[in-house]
């Protein structure tokens, strides 16, 4: 009898406990986070954002909204839908533009998959570039790793025209291009994080692209083109070559593909580690030799800040693979010719690089190579570095660049085969 009443009392206690906890728990399960919930099919994902200048200092914002059913197994259910929807709105900033766009698009626009930002050159050259980007970064949804592309024409025109024939999904185009940029170095790697690091007078390079076709001033050898100058007939509309130079929050000029490559190569670490270029044949006037230059180790940079004027010396070790000899000169089995070619490549590279460095010093008056990071290592405190003012002294700095080229392979032929004339 005593046992059952104890059990009965325990049962009462247990049930009161359960009821009490449910009274606390259940309303919480219903309330917590319910204000921020949303179904995936109610979301419209913007994959490309375009910014243009509109009158009165306003922004013209272009949203390219991806259609998730295109390119997936769901395609059959949405056969007539385009791969993306492009909406352009004029507003004071991006967030208000988004609110206005929500009156047109039935889904809620969000930026979680936004990876690419396209800015027109007009906006980049105006004083509004910096405050546009800085106020954008405040939004939690915007990622700092977003790529920034500057276009010759208006961003809206670029986005509408950029329909690559083999890539239906817009974000894939930019994703694949990004992988190529990392290798070829013909375009800088530019994202918002890098931009926000370069606000003290350094020069920041952004990707430069266009769908316009521009007559190049003279016919140059491959990489001397800017965006739009690459001579093509009947190709995909967009070209991304070269870079836009941004300093102190404003765009001040452009670089050709080759100059961008030098800018990437002279940086201490990272990208642009292999690309194919052609050099003049030192033994045959007018002919060219195509090599692939590979950079395996980082560049050695030494900055000397003991004097009034900084002295910078840069050493690069490149390995060359000889792929094509148009002039049929024997650079393969002839040892002296090999050395001659190596020397000739080194000289050409050094000449062109110094030309570019001088241009950076005189025209842009800034350091696109991140050499100031090396200079910082020579100081103990931040104040010392600011007092030396490396960036101010950079235009007067003495720069020496040395290339060390070694030919490591020649393709699968030995000396070039010649036509035997009897």
């Amino acid at each position, binding site marked *: 009898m005593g046992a059952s009443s104890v059990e009965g009392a325990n049962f009462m206690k247990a049930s009161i406990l359960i009821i009490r906890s449910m009274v606390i728990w259940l309303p919480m399960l219903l309330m917590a986070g319910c204000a921020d919930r949303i179904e995936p099919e109610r979301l419209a994902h913007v994959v490309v954002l375009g910014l243009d200048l509109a009158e009165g200092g306003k922004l013209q914002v272009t949203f390219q909204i991806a259609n998730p059913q295109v390119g997936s197994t769901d395609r059959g259910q949405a056969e007539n839908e385009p791969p993306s929807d492009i909406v352009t709105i004029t507003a004071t900033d991006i967030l208000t533009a988004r609110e206005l766009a929500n009156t047109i698009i039935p889904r809620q626009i969000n930026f979680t998959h936004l990876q690419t930002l396209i800015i027109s050159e007009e906006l980049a050259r105006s004083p509004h570039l910096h405050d546009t980007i800085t106020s954008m970064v405040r939004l939690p949804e915007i*990622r*700092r790793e977003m790529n920034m592309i500057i276009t010759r024409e208006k961003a809206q025109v670029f986005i509408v025209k950029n329909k690559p024939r083999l890539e239906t999904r817009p974000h894939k185009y930019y994703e694949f291009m990004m992988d190529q940029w990392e290798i070829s170095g013909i375009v800088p790697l530019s994202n918002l*994080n890098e931009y926000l690091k370069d*606000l003290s007078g350094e020069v920041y390079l952004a990707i430069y692209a266009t769908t316009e076709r521009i007559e190049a001033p003279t016919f140059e050898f491959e990489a001397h083109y800017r965006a739009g100058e690459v001579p093509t007939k009947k190709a995909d509309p967009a070209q991304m070559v070269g870079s836009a130079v941004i300093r102190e929050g404003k765009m001040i000029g452009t670089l050709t593909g080759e100059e961008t490559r030098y800018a990437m190569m002279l940086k201490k670490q990272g990208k642009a580690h292999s690309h194919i270029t052609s050099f003049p044949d030192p033994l045959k006037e007018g002919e060219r030799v195509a090599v692939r230059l590979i950079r395996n180790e980082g560049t050695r940079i030494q900055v000397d800040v003991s004097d009034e004027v900084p002295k910078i010396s840069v050493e690069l070790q490149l390995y060359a693979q000889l792929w094509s000899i148009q002039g049929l000169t024997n650079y393969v089995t002839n040892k002296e010719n090999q050395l001659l070619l190596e020397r000739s490549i080194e000289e050409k590279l050094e000449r062109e690089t110094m030309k570019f460095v001088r241009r950076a010093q005189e025209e842009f008056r800034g350091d696109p190579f991140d050499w100031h990071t090396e200079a910082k290592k020579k100081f103990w*405190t931040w104040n010392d570095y600011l007092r030396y003012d490396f960036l101010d002294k950079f235009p007067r700095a003495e720069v020496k660049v040395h290339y060390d080229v070694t030919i490591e392979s020649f393709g699968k032929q030995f000396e070039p085969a010649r036509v035997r004339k009897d």
Partner: protein
Amino acid sequence: MHITDGKVGARELLGTVVFMIAMKATDSTPDLLIYHAMNASWLLSLLSGLIILLPLLLLVGLMKKYNTGLHDLLLRFTGRWVSGAIVALMFIGLFISTTINARSYVDIVNTLFFPQTSIPLILLSLLLFCSFVANRGFETIGRVTWLMFGVIMIVGTLLILTTWQHTSFSYLFPLLGPGLDQLLWDSLTHSSLYGEIILIAFFFPYVRSFQAYRGGIMIGFGLCVFLLVLFNALYVMVFDYPAIEHMAYPYQQLTRAASFGNKAAHLESVFLFIWIIGAVLHFAIYLYLLAYLFSRIFKIHEFEPLILSLAGMILLMAGFPKNIIQQNILRDWLISSTSFMFLLLPIVLWGLHLWKGRTS
């Protein structure tokens, strides 16, 4: 049926220490360190750790001699009323610290992840769950932290691996940031970053043996210093000073930068999940400690019911700061004022021990 003896070992203590202190690398503490030490915030945390090492060793030495916890030491050396006053001071300091910290964690979740959910609601959820965990007792807390310790270490390593490609060691230079003299002064005033390692000495009666206590504390302390230094360095290496000065929540931004290869992998949800678990355990330990301190002032024996009421008080007080800027200012003032207390307490106790040894 008693499976355990209700006491914790070195591992559980290690987990407790790590969750108490190392979680500070992931909230708004790096903001303060970067504000004071610019790009040398890692050096600031290292110096603070070194500075508090001496009082810590003194305290551990004292505890070895008398084989008792901090409360008994205080009673023995300073008598009933003074020890009551000291514990009351510690309680007030820890209470304000917990309130502001809880509010800052809630602000992070509200700003970055759930902008439309009301702050009191998130605060309620956080404190409710923490008090449920804390209610189970110190042994449970210790065991849960040891359980999650392995997970946290693996996820932390994953974070470092996925962000490594974005780091650049050169961003740490110039090494001394604002200058060695300012760094030293700031590390002195900010040593209450690690102050809880002194407070954990109150829980000595719950630990199985002195060896377990010493092992757990010293390894835990070393690991906390290492983690704080590593994370502060990581923030500067990825984002570079001065850009990081304008960034409000460096840990969450770091998780957004995590990626496998080039494409954004949106890994931040994995890290957020683990962070929330860490946050709940972090505050559970604080709640338990607060309840313990409160009970020691007024000589209450059963103090676990206090946890829920203290959580309620924190819920009310945490509504006071308007936003993160006010919290950061309050936090800075609090850290500076409690640092000297944590630094001087073991030294004063050691001094009293020598004095008593001489006269007796």
